[in-house]
């Protein structure tokens, strides 16, 4: 009875314990929400006379029927981007598929020093090279898993790493289904293909596209109707790597074989 009595007394004061806790937790939640929302700005972005990222959506086309496996792209990428030895932002895989039996796949040093002929004596039914790199996926798992927001997609569709902010936990390296990321042994942060963001925002193309002697690689702007990539995507049959993962890769392959993953 005493208990009930005092409870009523508190109610007569205006605030019960339950109500107090409820109100104060709401207030706390509100304060936290305000603090979290405050710094969200609405800047115009990277736009100016030289480059406007709202007028660009970058995509990449790789023609596996043209690639000769010289490895020039791998070497060019390394020098252009100071990629440490043994690490690859792009690499070339060789596929030799016999008429019957298992496919042979290799990528010695990422194809950087070219390929020696395979001397297994197998009866190759079809053979081809497949250059690989970051697919700059529209729905990419790598940026989603980053616990600190160091991986992000720019407004023009390029997936980048903020090396200043990255803590090197390696979650994104594991999340990428294409093996496109690595931990840079010099900086101890995540590293990956940037589609040479420093070049493409200055009117140049990527180092790998620039150096390819057979035109197997092409970078283009989806937002420019006159860009050659748009004709390819509109008229040719293209495929992406591992479409079943629904990451929406933005590297489109011509002449891709089902053996390629």
């Amino acid at each position: 009875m005493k208990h009930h009595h005092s409870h009523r007394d508190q109610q007569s004061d205006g605030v019960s314990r339950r109500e107090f806790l409820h109100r104060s937790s709401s207030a706390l939640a509100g304060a936290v929400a305000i603090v979290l929302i405050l710094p969200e700005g609405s800047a115009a972005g990277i736009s100016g006379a030289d480059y406007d990222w709202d007028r660009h959506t970058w995509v990449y086309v790789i023609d596996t029927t043209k690639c000769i496996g010289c490895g020039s792209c791998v070497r060019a990428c390394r020098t252009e981007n100071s990629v440490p030895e043994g690490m690859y932002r792009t690499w070339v895989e060789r596929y030799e598929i016999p008429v019957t039996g298992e496919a042979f796949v290799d990528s010695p040093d990422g194809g950087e020093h070219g390929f020696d002929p395979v001397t297994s004596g197998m009866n190759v039914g079809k053979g081809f090279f497949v250059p690989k790199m970051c697919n700059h996926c529209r729905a990419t798992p790598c940026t989603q898993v980053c616990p600190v927001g160091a991986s992000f997609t720019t407004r023009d569709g390029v997936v980048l790493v903020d090396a200043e902010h990255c803590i090197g936990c390696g979650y994104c390296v594991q999340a990428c289904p294409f093996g496109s990321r690595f931990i840079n042994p010099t900086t101890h942060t995540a590293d990956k293909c940037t589609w040479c963001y420093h070049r493409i925002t200055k009117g140049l193309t990527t180092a790998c596209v620039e150096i390819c002697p057979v035109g197997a690689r092409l970078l283009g702007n989806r937002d420019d109707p006159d860009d050659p990539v748009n004709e390819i995507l509109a008229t040719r049959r293209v495929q992406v790597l591992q479409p079943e993962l629904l990451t929406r890769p933005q590297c489109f392959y011509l002449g891709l074989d089902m053996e390629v993953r």
Partner: protein
Amino acid sequence: MTSENPLAHSKHVFRAALLLLIVVATLILGRLFFVPETWGEYGFYRGAAVGEHRAKPVRFGGDEACEPCHDAEYAEHAVGVHAPVRCELCHGPVALHADLEEGEKLADMPIRRSRELCELCHRAQAARPTSFPQIDVREHLLENGGEVTPDACFDCHDPHSPY
């Protein structure tokens, strides 16, 4: 009981309010200290990172970068079958050789007169497109009466414009 001062238990409220204030102040101060300046400028990332990527140095300049000084080689190369092969594929990036903005030469460009360089593209491979010219160097030299030396290719072929 009903005559009790309504502020008799107010110190509980003040304690809770103080605690709340400390928590909120810590959050705000913590954010000011830990959140980078340009965070959230364009999205859930540090806005300045975009500019930092853009500011990285360009090393490959394209054939046009070579033309001003090497116009003879440029002209010969431009009309040959090796026209699609960039100067920098064999010679390396121009940035290691010249400062294009200052117009200054920094170092000699490496010239690799080696068979291995040619073989990167032209050594016969089952995986290469059949339409692409490729050879077994030993067979090719045997057929044409050459000797297997490290720079054998250059006895007959000018890499700027082969054939």
